[in-house]
Each structure stands twice: as C-alpha cells, then as structure tokens.
C-alpha cells in the first residue's frame, strides 16, 4: 500500500502575493505572524474580499500592503490614515484596513490618527509596534520605553513614550485591543471582531525586532522574546487603558480594552444634513466616477 502525500498548501497563501516572496522581514520579526493572523481572520470573516482594501504607510510594517493579495495601497510616511479616509468616504462599500507601524502611525502620522479617531471614520487600524524605527536602522520611536539603547539614543532613551491604547481611546476609537506576536489566536479573534465593528477600530500588536531592538538591548533572540511575552503578558480584558503602559521589561497588559458604540462619520454627517437640508440632501454614495 502506498501513501499518497498531498500537500494541502498553506491556508493563508491565497491572501498573499506569493510571487513577491521572499519578503523583506527579518527572521523572528512579528510582522509576518500578524499577517498570518490577519489572513486567517479574513478567511473566517466571510467578507467579500473584493471589497477589502488595505492601506499602509512607510516602514517595515508599511510593506504589508504590498504582500497582501487585495486592493492595496502603499502610501507616504504617516499618511495611510488620511488616504484610507478618502478611500472609505468615496467608496463606502469598501472595508478599509490600515496596516502600519508605530513610528508611522504615532510619530509622523500621529495627528492624522487622533483626528480619524475623533471623526470616527469607519476604518480599521492594525499597528504593529516593535518599539523602534526598524526600517531605518533602529532609531528611537515615540513608543520606545525608557532606558532602551537605540541608534539615536546610544546611552539609553529618556523621553517618555506613548501608551497607544490610552491615546487612541481618548481620541475616540470604538474598539481598542492589544496582543503580542505570541498571542496569535487571540489576535486573530480580535481582528475578526474588529471587522464587525463600525467606526474607528484599533489593534496594537507588539512585535519583536530581534535585529535592532532585542539584539542591541541584549534581550536575546526572537525565541527569547516569545518566552518573554509569554512570561510577562497578562490578559486583562476591559482593563482601563490608563493602566496599560509598557516598560522595557515590566508586565505587558494584553486584551480587549474598549468595545463601544458611537455614530460613525457618515452617520453623523447624514443625520446633520438631513436635519438641516431635509430632502434637498443627497447622500454621497459611492462617488462612482461615471464621468
């Protein structure tokens, strides 16, 4: 009797532009892990993939858009969110996901992020947070915790860092969660939940940067970082975001912190316009460019 071995293939492969592999990410990097979760979340979401668009900024995570087999936009540094805002408002049937890094979204793009959250534009933001500028060689980011060696703080960082969930909740997001690259199942579930939310939704994914962060700070390799995540992470769903700050080696609070309802930008506009203009108001449906 012979056994026929059939390779069923990787279930996330249809979501990837496999002709672009190998990707640019370093061994041990968590971005690919998060993409795996994202693809699995899409598989199980029953979304019509034609209507899923992904927008990235610049940086290591900024390359995600280029590897996803979806309508994908790789924009400028920090500006993925305003691009996504235009895409969503002009074509409301699209499910628009912004996939970018902590430096892109919270330093150069920080203003856009808080304003999109304030407006409650219906876009989903996945922020891979590796605590550093990785693409450019390991410089300090607004997320880098204190006493960390970076290429621009060779004697250790001292400027305070952002607590991303706290900031995003304060700005108005309707969904806020954080996981690490170790928590792949929880991350996948969170992404599925996020797809169902209407309004500005945000997931932070802590990722190792073994090449520039862990190595420079003598924190071991990627496997050591996974062990570290496992050891110090504490799942606290519903934890007040003011209590989830990160430090170099302290506890990492993960979980779903915010899940609330708020009218999104289009609903708010619709209600206001109808109240003021009555039947003179014409809803901006897909600005289908017939002309």
């Amino acid at each position, binding site marked *: 009797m012979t056994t026929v071995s059939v390779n069923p293939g990787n279930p996330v492969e249809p979501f990837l532009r496999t002709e672009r592999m190998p990707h640019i990410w370093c061994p041990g990097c968590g971005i690919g892990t998060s993409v795996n979760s994202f693809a699995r979340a899409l598989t199980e979401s029953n979304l019509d993939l034609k209507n899923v668009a992904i927008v990235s900024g610049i940086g290591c995570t900024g390359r995600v858009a*280029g590897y996803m087999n979806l309508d*994908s936009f790789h*924009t400028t540094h920090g500006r993925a969110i305003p691009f996504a*805002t*235009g*895409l969503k408002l*002009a074509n409301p049937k*699209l499910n628009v996901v912004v996939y970018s890094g902590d430096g892109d979204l919270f330093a150069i793009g920080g203003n856009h992020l808080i304003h999109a959250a304030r407006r409650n534009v219906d876009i989903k933001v996945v922020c891979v947070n590796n605590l550093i500028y990785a693409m450019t060689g390991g410089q300090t980011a607004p997320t880098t915790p204190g006493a960390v060696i970076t290429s621009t703080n060779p004697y250790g960082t001292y400027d305070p860092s952002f607590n991303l969930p706290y900031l995003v909740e304060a700005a108005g997001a309707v969904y806020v969660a954080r996981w690490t690259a170790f928590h792949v199942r929880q991350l996948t579930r969170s992404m599925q939940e996020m797809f169902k939310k209407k309004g500005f939704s945000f997931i932070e994914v802590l990722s190792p940067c073994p090449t520039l962060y862990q190595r420079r700070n003598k924190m071991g390799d990627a496997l050591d970082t996974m062990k570290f995540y496992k050891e110090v992470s504490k799942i606290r769903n519903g934890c007040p975001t003011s209590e989830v700050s990160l430090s170099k080696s302290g506890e990492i609070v993960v979980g779903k912190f915010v899940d609330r309802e708020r009218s999104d930008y289009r609903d708010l506009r619709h209600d206001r316009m109808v109240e003021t203009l009555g039947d003179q108001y014409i809803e901006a449906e897909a600005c289908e460019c017939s002309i």
Partner: protein
Amino acid sequence: MHADPAGVLTGTHFLDGDHACCEGALAAGARFSSGYPITPSTEVVERFAARVPTIGGTFIQMEDELAASITLQGAVWGGAKAFTVTSGPGFSLMMEHIGLAVMTETPCVFVDVQRGGPSTGLPTLPAQGDMMQVRWGSHGDYEIIALCPNSPQESFDLTIKAFNLAEKYRVPVFVMLDEVVGHMTEKVVIPPADQIEVEPRRYTTIPPGEFLAYQAKDDLVPDMPRTGEGYNVHVTGLTHDERGYPDMKPATQDKLVRRLVDKIRKNADKIILNEEDQIDGADVVVVSYGITSRVAQRSIDMAREKGVKVGKFRLITAWPFPEKKIAEIASKVKALVVAELNLGQMVREVERAVAGKAVVRFVGHAGGSVHRPEDIFQAIMEVAR
C-alpha cells in the same frame, strides 16, 4: 462625454475667481474635496461645502494640508474625481503628495491661490511666487501640468480643463490662481451641461487577472483599474514595474520615470494653450500670465499708442512650458519683455527658450499688489529703441 447636469449651475453669474473655480470643479464632475483653510483660497471649498451636499458628494475638512493632499488621492482610487485647494504655506506642505500623485499616476487637481511669500508672507495679497515650486517642489524627476487663469471666467473654464487633463494623462494638474484673480468679481457664464466636455476616467476593460496596472498605452498613459472589483491592484510610491510591484533595479527606475516625464513632454503640443495677439511683425513681445497679463494689456495698449509694434504672448499653460513657441518668437523679434509677480521665475524659462536670439527684459515685482502699467510700458519702450 458631457458634464453631469447636477453639478452645472448654468447661467450668467457675478462670481469671484475662487467661487468660479468651485463651479468649474463641480461642472467637471468633482464630487470630493478634502481641504484645510488658508487665505486667500478658502472660498473655493467653502462654496463646495455648501453646494456638494445637495448634489451628492463629500467635503471633508482635514487636520492639515498633508492630510488634505492625500485624502483626495484615496478618494480618487475610491472612484471619485477629487481636488484640494490651498495657498503658499499649505502648498509647501503638499509637495510630498504631489510626488505621490505623480508616481502612482493618480488623476487629481490642486488649486493654488498664490499669495506673497516666503513663509507666511502676505496672506491677503497677491503674488505669482509658486510657479517654480509647482514645477519642481517635490523631489525627483517629474512633469506636471499647470494652468494660469486671468479672470473668474477662466477660473471656471480652466478648472474644468484641469480635471480633463488630469484624467487624460493621469497626472496632478494645478490651477494657479493668484489672490487678485481669486477675489476679483466679474461676469461668469456657465454653459448648459451638454456644452461642457468632460474627460471620463480611463478605466480598463481588461478583466482582473489579465490586467497589468502600470502597462502604458500608446499615449504612454496606463488605464486604471476600479477598486473593489477584484483587480487586487497594488499602488505604491516606490519605483514599480508594470504589475505595480516594487522593483529597485535602475532599469525599472529608468523605464518608469522616463515614461512619467515623457507622457507630458511628448504630448506637450496637445496640452499647451496660450493666447497670442499681434505677434507677427512685432518688435517687442510681452510675455505674462495670470493677473499680470491684465496689467500688461494696459502697458501694451500704451506702447501701441506711441507707435511701437508690440505683441502679446500669454501663458495659459505655464507647465509644460511652450518653449518651441517662445523660441520661434525670439527668432522674429528684437526683444521679449517678461512681467510676473515674483523676482524672476518663468523668465528663466523664457531665457532658456530664447537662447540669446533676442533681448529678454524682466519686469519683476515682489508681490503685495499688481504691477504699475507704467513699469511694464517703460520696459517695452526701452527695448523697442
């Protein structure tokens, strides 16, 4: 294709250049604008914000010009015709996204109502100081199209033209108003929708799977895919191949950037518009554009009264620059007088095209008001001697 009547305010109006620009955008089919307030341009989007909810479209006020200048590009990829409006300081912030629009071949329109600079400069007073910035302000090699209305009527007409050129060549097109044209009020005639030609988006008819997103047609411009139709297109500001995939090879860069430049350079004769008057037999030709051309007309009339043979050449398209035309004029006249509201920008292009074949006399002005007609007149008289 004709304009959608919903956006066309047919009739005879008394409008300023900013409002006429807004009507031009609506007539051209623009249904999306993202803006950030800045004098003297804000009236364009204020009118759009008031008008578009009754037509079916979106105005969104963004948090800054960086956002305004990319939100509209998201809207374009979402299927809308879209534009933004600004003035000098905001225009400086938009440079990054001019590069993005060039690289990703996103058809869109930027309106710059020019004011005195540098920096905050003269917020409520005119200049024509952004003429080189519009051409060269973003990094790298590229070509764009810039149009210079000299009246509210032209602000309407050329805004429609700008949208049409943007769609045809998939390039950002700039309407270069100045504070005076933006704020002057004159008669504006808006024709019926069936008399307004609009350029449709060049959507591909090739099905997903067979379509190469950046494979150019004979006119060097690729057709566009529709987002949300399964094309799974990748659009990137990185150097990319015909599939749209990043490719860092010098050969790919050469092929792509040459095409981006050539699609404008090689179609320049089809794009360029200018106004000429009594150039044949002239000894002196006055070159100007925008509001300065209105002042120069007075100076030309004054010189003609003195018996000087003066021709007029008005740039309507500043970019691509009509260098062949200027070279041709230079071979026939004694001198060209160039007047503009800056201390020497388009005059450099004129000098380059003239290439020493005639005298070029520059009449500059740092902005804040228009020229005195006497200053341009005096320059004409000096070179005519």
